[in-house]
């Protein structure tokens, strides 16, 4: 036990010396939720009125537009496809923002050339263009990540996407699947500078800071509570990811190996790292809780909150252990984690309430631990639920956590520790 405390303490000190990553992750749910609730809080729900000028009539341009105007986005976005007149309409204050998809968008992505989406904001509309920008940024990130990870498969696909021929024979399909596999194998290049970027600018005078802090009050908090739990659950998974990543950092620095040369068993080192991840997740959870507390208006079932949080932490640590154990390498693990978490967060309703989503999404949501975490917290914070009401969430999260923790422990042990941590 003493050794365990010693190891966790050492890691916590190290984290405290280099806390930037953690702070960014923690700031994210707070800012995101605050922005959304400020925008939608206070009675009416103003929509972001987004103009899209698409100069790319190839596949990805269309895909982007359909993403923007999808049902889920429709909750917040009104999308209108415009031509050249878009810019002048923004200047006239006609809409919140204008998203321009450049002419060679699909081609650039498929060929791996840098390209830039641009967003022209209308500052007169206060927070709304901000939201448009945040969402566009997220989309840009996803596209950028996807285009890098899938570089090789896209090279294989390029002739078919860019040309008109759609001659999908068996050989081609197998080529492409091999290429996708390779892509996930060689994702190290992922950490290169972005291929797709978002450039943003404002038009018109900055003078028009308009009426937006109307009645607000309870409405703001309600929206906050609606959004915050989901984003926080997502952030907690990222926190666990950051902490678990440390075992690979130590493996690369040689300190993992050095610990195993000391009078401790490899299993002890892994348990210590899991305990460290859990501690960091716990500290983060407390910080997020304090914020959620301020917003909550009904009394919260403390026991339920605590039990759910412990189950969630178990799931967080288990997921991270499984991902890094399977990946075996720091960079690969980081890429896989970010993709898996984004996917789970979207499908689990962390970002957008799944109530309004198509049936298929609601059907697959329960495979995501994010779903159970989000539902549990929403029930506790917003609906005054008790421990008994959220037992399904607690059960599923604990089960996922335990299974993944065991699996991840075995994988980490095999891939890192047995190899001497080298």
């Amino acid at each position: 036990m003493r050794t365990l405390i010693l190891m966790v303490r050492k890691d916590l000190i190290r984290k405290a010396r280099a806390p930037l990553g953690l702070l960014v992750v923690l700031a994210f749910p707070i800012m995101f939720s605050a922005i959304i609730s400020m925008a939608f809080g206070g009675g009416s729900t103003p929509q972001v009125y987004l103009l899209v000028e698409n100069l790319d009539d190839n596949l990805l341009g269309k895909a982007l537009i359909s993403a923007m105007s999808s049902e889920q986005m429709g909750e917040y976005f009104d999308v209108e496809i415009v031509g050249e007149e878009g810019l002048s309409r923004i200047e006239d204050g006609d809409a919140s923002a204008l998203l321009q998809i450049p002419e060679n968008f699909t081609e650039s992505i498929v060929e791996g050339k840098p390209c830039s989406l641009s967003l022209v904001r209308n500052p007169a509309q206060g927070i709304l263009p901000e939201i448009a920008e945040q969402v566009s940024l997220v989309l840009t990130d996803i596209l950028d990540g996807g285009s890098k990870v899938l570089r090789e498969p896209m090279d294989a696909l390029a002739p078919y996407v860019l040309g008109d021929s759609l001659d999908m024979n068996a050989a081609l399909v197998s080529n492409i699947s091999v290429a996708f596999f390779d892509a996930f194998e060689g994702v190290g290049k992922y950490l290169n500078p972005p291929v797709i970027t978002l450039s943003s600018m404002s038009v018109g005078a900055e003078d028009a800071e308009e009426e937006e802090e109307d009645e607000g009050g309870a409405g703001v908090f309600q929206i906050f509570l609606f959004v915050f739990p989901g984003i926080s659950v997502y952030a907690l998974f990222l926190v666990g990811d950051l902490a678990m990543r440390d075992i690979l950092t130590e493996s690369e620095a040689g300190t993992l190996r050095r610990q195993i040369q000391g009078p401790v068993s490899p299993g002890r080192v892994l348990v210590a790292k899991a305990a460290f991840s859990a501690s960091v997740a716990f500290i983060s959870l407390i910080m997020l809780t304090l914020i959620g507390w301020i917003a909550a208006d009904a009394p919260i079932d403390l026991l339920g909150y605590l039990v759910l949080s412990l189950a969630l932490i178990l799931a967080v640590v288990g997921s991270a252990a499984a991902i890094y154990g399977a990946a075996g390498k720091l960079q690969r693990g980081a890429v896989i984690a970010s993709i898996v978490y984004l996917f789970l967060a979207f499908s689990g309703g962390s970002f957008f309430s799944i109530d309004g989503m198509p049936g298929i999404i609601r059907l697959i949501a329960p495979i995501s631990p994010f779903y159970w975490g989000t539902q549990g917290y929403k029930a506790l914070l917003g609906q005054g639920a008790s421990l008994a009401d959220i037992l399904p969430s607690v059960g599923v999260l604990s089960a996922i956590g335990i299974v993944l923790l065991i699996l991840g422990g075995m994988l980490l042990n095999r891939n890192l520790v047995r190899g001497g941590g080298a």
Partner: protein
Amino acid sequence: MFQVENLSKRYGEIHAVDGISFQVRAGEVYGLLGPNGAGKTTTLSMLSGVLKPDNGRILFDDIDLHAEPVKVKQQLGVVPQETALYEDLSARENLKFWGGLYGLRGSELDQAINKTLDRVGLTARAKDAVKKYSGGMKRRLNLALGLIHEPRLVLLDEPTVGIDPQARVNILDVVRDVAKSGTTVLYTTHYLEEAESLCDRIAIMDHGRILAEGSLDELKKQAGEEETVTIEGNFEAELVRAKIEAVSSVRLLSAEQGRAVISTGGSGEGAVKLLESLFGADLPMHGISIRPPSLNSLFLNLTGRELRD
């Protein structure tokens, strides 16, 4: 006190360590001397319990490492070839962690930290984060971390590689100091001079095997009474080979483009004949040196290669 029996490790086709056996006696400095790729690090990895041998046994005071790893590892100090430090922590914090891991507490730990810092000359910089250290300072701390708990046996893997001469002298002094205080040392190196000046006994290792073992004197005896003559110049290996084979009672130990080493066969007569034929021959030479029997000539005798950096 430390006994290695028939230890082997393969990496695919490579026999990194190929059935070696040796004993390290309490209190001695035992050297594993071998060129790059000889299998020194692989051996130490097995001795320190992070790499599982394919074959063989490792006994520490008759306790099997495999059977009771934690108990044995508690007695060892390990200094890896690559520095392994927490860069965000200070030297003192690093020492505190590793000391604690080996069970030191409280004032005992504090004393050990101060003593070790002093030993490696890092007291003045003890509070700085390691990432601000120079390469030589990191190496010294790397050494310190293996010594903090005053192990009974310390395994050192080429602790002087890649540092400036001054830091090297400092590290060698520390190792001598450690040995003098009664700690047993297993020291790997590919520097002849280090092995000669530091070690009580030396094992010469190449291709995963121990080719010769003994004290410096014993090894020199094995090298025989033969002086070696090294010539350097602008010649092909084949040319030298032909010339030397014509001279009776001398032996060509190694020949490569521009450099050859020849044994005189231990007789003054052989040396004279050799020199005569060398000067008589049409060899474009620009250097010649005659050396007494040494570890290098033994290594040459055994492997046909020179032990050079």
